[in-house]
């Protein structure tokens, strides 16, 4: 197992390199230039050129890439053009809020969705199932911006129960309680999709598992329904569900771009939007690489979990 993990980590390196090259090329192919955005309109071409030279943007692309790579390997992710602040501390300050937001969302979603999916499957074909399947359909379909604005209107503007956005009130001491208070609306919005999605998967998987012959064997043994569900049903249903969790995990840092924007959540999603709009190339590269690393780790985690849950899977 250790050998397998080491091998996976080593093969991840060339993958990351390819991703960085791809991201760098795409970024530079996109129209626009960082200097356009923050140089005053009356700047002379000489001044613009001087700025480009100062930022290293006058160099050929391969040279720029190699310079970026060399610095990145030494832990220097560059600076934000507009503010002249280094990228790394900004990035780090934004990771926390996003992990809090998405972690709460995923945890809450799975806690709700897995039992709902099992219930739906066990009540397959009854009104309970129809209701849950219909609800899941709505949850998957409803756009985040619409649900977000709707919830803000009802619960913040009309009822005044929750803040309209942010992670804490200005001038207020930030505590776990205030963060929780601020979390409720955005987590509700984001969970709608994850709950709906996972409920549907869990339902489909459980229906499939309950059609398997080993469930019939368990029934013929005279086991109680509860025992069949926990010992024979859920364990086998987990295998496909782990795949879904694996695809959800990168969202922990990928953030929720639209929802963070609506709720002014100080996370990576909003940072990404800003970085794109202002052509902050070093920041974009840093965010892309961070996402890539997380995706690779999530995949590795999923593969390891398969082996934990399913004895048929072994890595040698």
């Amino acid at each position, binding site marked *: 197992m250790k050998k397998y993990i080491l091998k996976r980590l080593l093969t991840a390196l060339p993958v990351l390199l390819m991703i960085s090259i791809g991201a760098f090329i795409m970024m530079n192919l996109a129209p626009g230039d960082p200097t356009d955005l923050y140089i005053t309109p009356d700047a002379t071409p000489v001044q613009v050129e001087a700025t480009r030279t100062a930022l290293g943007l006058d160099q050929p692309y391969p040279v720029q890439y190699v310079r970026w790579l060399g610095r990145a390997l030494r832990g220097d992710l560059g600076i934000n053009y507009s503010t002249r602040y280094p990228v790394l501390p900004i990035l780090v300050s934004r990771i926390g809020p996003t992990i809090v937001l998405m972690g709460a969302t995923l945890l809450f979603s799975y806690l709700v969705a897995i039992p709902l999916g099992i219930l739906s499957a066990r009540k*397959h*074909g009854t009104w309970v199932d129809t209701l849950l399947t219909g609800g899941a359909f709505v949850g998957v379909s409803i756009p985040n911006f619409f649900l977000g604005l709707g919830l803000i209107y009802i619960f913040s503007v009309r009822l005044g129960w929750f803040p309209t956005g942010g992670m804490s009130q200005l001038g207020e001491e930030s505590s776990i309680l205030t963060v929780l208070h601020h979390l409720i609306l955005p987590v509700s919005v984001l969970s709608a999709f994850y709950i709906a999605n996972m409920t549907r998967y869990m339902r489909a998987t459980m229906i499939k598992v309950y059609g*398997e*012959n*080993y469930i*019939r*064997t*368990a*029934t*013929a*043994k*005279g*086991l*109680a*329904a509860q*025992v069949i569900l926990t*010992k*024979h049903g859920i*364990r*086998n249903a987990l295998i496909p569900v782990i795949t879904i969790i694996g695809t959800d995990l990168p969202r922990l840092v990928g953030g929720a771009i639209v929802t963070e924007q609506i709720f002014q959540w100080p996370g990576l999603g909003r940072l990404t939007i800003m970085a794109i709009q202002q052509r902050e190339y070093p920041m974009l590269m840093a965010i892309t690489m961070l996402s890539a690393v997380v995706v690779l780790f999530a995949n590795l985690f999923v593969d390891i979990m398969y082996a934990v*849950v*399913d*004895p*048929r899977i072994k890595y040698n």
Partner: protein
Amino acid sequence: MEETTILEVKDLAVSFQTFEGVVQAVRGVDFSLKKGETLAIVGESGSGKSVSTKAINQLLPKKNTLIERGEILFEGKDLLKLSEKEIQKIRGNDIAMIFQDPMTSLNPTMQVGKQIAEPIIAHKGVSKGEAKQKALELMDLVGIQHPERTYKSYPHQFSGGMRQRVMIAIALACEPKILIADEPTTALDVTIQAQILDLMNNLKKDLDTSIIFITHDLGVVAQMADRVAVMYAGKIVEIGTADEIFYNPMHPYTWGLLASMPTLDVEQTSLYTIPGSPPNLLHPPEGDAFAARNEYALGIDFYEDPELFKVSETHFAKTWLLHPDAPEVIPPAEVIRRKEKFRYLNSEKRMSKTVGGEAYGRRY
């Protein structure tokens, strides 16, 4: 053999609600099972043999199964009237099952030993350690080598034959009074089949369990059964002792089945097949369901279903040919040969309870 009846199925009729309509899978089946005997139920796919036995343990899907009528009496209780909790106490404990496909019948994520110990814990109220001990004994009993080591194995590490041994160990775990084996050897290759059948025969002798053996393979029946019931289109068309069914068959469908068995001792150029296919049980035909495929069908077969005619105390067949007014017909050559042997055996008073597989044409 003790002659106490342990299970009695009376006029059982089971239908399934499907999108196309109601399928009448079992249309009135009567049979009984005595203590220690093996009853084989034979028939084509869809003849209702599996459904009739799954009804005993209430293993049919609740959602679309309709028990139209009938009773299944076990120890004075009608199993069809029991609640889910009550039938749970009987499943695996008094009445256990072995299924057709050992490759998919075991939980892939649970150690085989634990799967064997499970019903013991559920029914016998023993500790986990005692259940494990018993499971190890069972593994030894069914011929799994090194139980201590293989207890912790997973099903994918076992071959099909070994998995079926595990299934048998599970079924025997609580020393059931009745063992229902639903085509337990169909998915196995012939040498493994023979091993599993030998194992079941030996266990039956040791444990005195009654067995209902479902199969479409008459060769297997010959090796296993004391009595045989032949099913067609949801009804039993002929029932009798193994000797009566094999050597003195009365129903044209049984004739067809016997004639379509490959034999070693007759020079065969081609194998007989019963023409046509079984009727669609969404709309069972009027009269005898077999009439359309029956070259011996009488006029009455097409509008009136025959009753079971008595041939002997143990032998009944559902065909108008046994009516006193029915014309004499000549059965297929293979059947005549068998009947001659039956008369010879009877006159010599040499009929034995268990006849070697050879006489039935197929040998394992």
